[in-house]
């Protein structure tokens, strides 16, 4: 196998954390919608926390992306 081919495969494998990030984001927002349906008054404070959590999760995906780019180059 060529070295560049191996690099491409390694870069693709480095993007696997995206699965976890997608699962986590779907979990956060589905529970947010459930919670707002049950208690619409507390929507503002809950959505603030959910957005912060989403931002924290997103950074994991972006770190994986940067590592993949560093591998491929």
């Amino acid at each position, binding site marked *: 196998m060529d070295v560049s081919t191996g690099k491409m495969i390694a870069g693709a494998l480095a993007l696997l954390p995206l699965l976890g990030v997608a699962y986590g984001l779907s979990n956060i927002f589905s529970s947010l919608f459930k919670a707002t349906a049950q208690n619409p008054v507390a929507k503002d404070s809950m959505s603030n926390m959910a*957005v912060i959590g989403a*931002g*924290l999760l*997103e*950074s994991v995906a*972006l*770190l994986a992306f*940067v590592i993949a*780019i560093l591998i491929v*180059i």
Partner: protein
Amino acid sequence: MYVFEQFKILEIIPINVFGYVISFTNSTLFMAITALSLGLLSFIGLKKVRFVPGFFQSINEIIFNFVKGICKEHLGKEYKNYQPLIMSLFLFIVFGNLLGLFPMSFTITSHLSVTMALSLIVFCMVVFVGIRKHGFKFFKLFIPNGVPLVMSPLIFLIEFAIFLVKPLILSLRLCVNMVAGHIMLKVFLGFAVKMKLFSFIPVFACSILLIFEFFVAIFQAYIFTVLACISLKDALYLH
């Protein structure tokens, strides 16, 4: 690679002092533009304060009330002492991110050294405030309540490591978000060059991404300030 050319630092006025390079680079230029535009915004807005605010004054008031809300929510009754720091951090990051979205411009927050400096300011502030307020008791921050005595050395080490890594993660998040967004824009525009006749499709996608980037630029500054507030709260009230 053509994607990374936008992050290159170019020397505009080369200055060398005793072997140290302190040149006036494009990063310096855009930092100066950021600071100048911030100063101009507040100067125009607060030149003549009226009871019924005009356009620029109401922009200033909206930003002020937004940051005040963040500080009040996290720092409690002592928020007034720390709001200037938090607000200047927030405004600097927002304006740096937004100026980077202009074509042919340079994003100052896409370099780890800049964001690391910003987060180290917060880190030093947290340590200084904690030690000044609590003295030697500050180290109770690293041992949460209700931990058994046998486990406390291990917990202390883990919490101390987390405390030291926090500014690194804080800076890395902002930097990586900006870098990834700009790379994505560049890749889409690269498609536009290759797809000759159908180049309007990637350009359209790029303009949608640009709106998304506009949102991300404000959102990341918000996250930065909120996390700075949370770590400051931990030092102020010790759990």
